[in-house]
């Protein structure tokens, strides 16, 4: 009988702990934009924020043997990112932005407004363009694909919940979300290649 394993963040972390650096790539790719978004609340310069986010990932790698899975990997990574950003600001003798409180909920709509003030016009334009491309691709999806992906991305439902809502097997949900992403990805790739 083939041994089956639940692969997710915990499994990837376990593999990194055993010395598999490739698995860490997946975790970096998966969470880099979220970490950048969090760090961006503290460090407003985009280039500096990237450096700090990168440092946070490196710190997390060094400390990954201390991660025991008591919390979700992202929660643990989130704390490291926040501390790295705070330490960076302390080292720079600057205070974190008073516009945001890390204890607040993670709704990022306020963050977008605030960052728009300090972004370069080019960066702001590129970000708006990307958002437009993604939303346009989303709008072009068939109803069943759009329903599946929005329940996941906008509402944060699990595959199991979505399967219940749409009254279909989990496998179908997985497939629909993948196909939706595929369509969106075609447009995003065109956009990125043109950039």
């Amino acid at each position, binding site marked *: 009988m083939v041994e089956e394993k639940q692969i997710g963040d915990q499994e990837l972390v376990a593999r990194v702990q055993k010395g598999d650096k490739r698995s860490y790539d997946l975790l970096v790719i998966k969470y880099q*934009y979220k970490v950048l978004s969090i760090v961006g609340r503290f460090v407003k310069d985009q280039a500096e924020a990237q450096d700090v986010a990168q440092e946070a990932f490196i710190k997390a790698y060094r400390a990954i043997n201390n991660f025991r899975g008591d919390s979700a990997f992202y929660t643990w990574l989130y704390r490291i990112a926040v501390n790295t950003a705070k330490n960076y600001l302390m080292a720079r003798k600057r205070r974190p932005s008073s516009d945001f409180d890390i204890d607040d909920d993670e709704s990022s709509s306020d963050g977008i407004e605030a960052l728009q003030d300090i972004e370069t016009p080019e960066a702001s334009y590129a970000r708006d363009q990307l958002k437009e491309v993604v939303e346009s691709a989303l709008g072009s999806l068939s109803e069943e694909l759009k329903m599946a992906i929005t329940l996941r991305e906008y509402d944060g439902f699990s595959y199991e919940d979505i399967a219940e809502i749409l009254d279909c097997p989990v496998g179908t949900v997985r497939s629909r979300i993948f196909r939706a992403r595929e369509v969106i990805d075609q447009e995003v790739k065109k956009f990125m290649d043109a950039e």
Partner: protein
Amino acid sequence: MNDKTMNENTGQWLSAALDDELGDLSEFEIHQLLKACEEPDTLDTFERYALASSVLSGDVVNPGSSLLVGVRTGIEAEPDMAMTGSTGGERPQWLRPLGRVAVAASVAVAVVFGANMLDTSTPDEVRPTSPVLAQQNGGGIDTTTSADNLNVVRRAVPENGVTYVSDGAAAGNYTAAANETSMTLSARQLQQVRQQRMRRYLMYHLEHASLNNNSGMLPFARVSNLETETATGH
């Protein structure tokens, strides 16, 4: 699908991995997925999935702000986690004093063991004096050594040897005794004699070293060298 190198399964796995919804995969499938992720095209696809997902989730993202290369470079020099221990990056604080105690204890054991090896029960005897090397007339060499309690003398005549005697008052006695009871010793007996002499040197050293300072360790090295030199005939 954008990339021909990526098959349907891999794409679906990547999508599900992004949502932490991979479900049950066989070890073989996990291996396949990780293998596919070695391809730059697959990682690019995964990265775009994550980018689009972040845009839809309302995260503040800018295209082209990938951290992967920088992070990879940063951890390149890091040792593999497996080599640094599977759990716990650092030793707990409470273990550190324990380590010092362990070192102190092992030193103490070594000292006690060393003291026992010195065999302090050696009877009073003539204190060994500095050895002298005396060239014999005939070119042949006598190795005459004191052996009070054994009452034996090794007489060997190597070609370029040196007669090795103890000087001082005891020397005459040794020589006299040697003349009377000289006999050829086996290698084992010679070894015993040498050990006896070494013990006496060490006892002598201990008595004086305890009266002096830390440099009292030096004679140990000299005795050791002396033995080596004697064995090699220098």
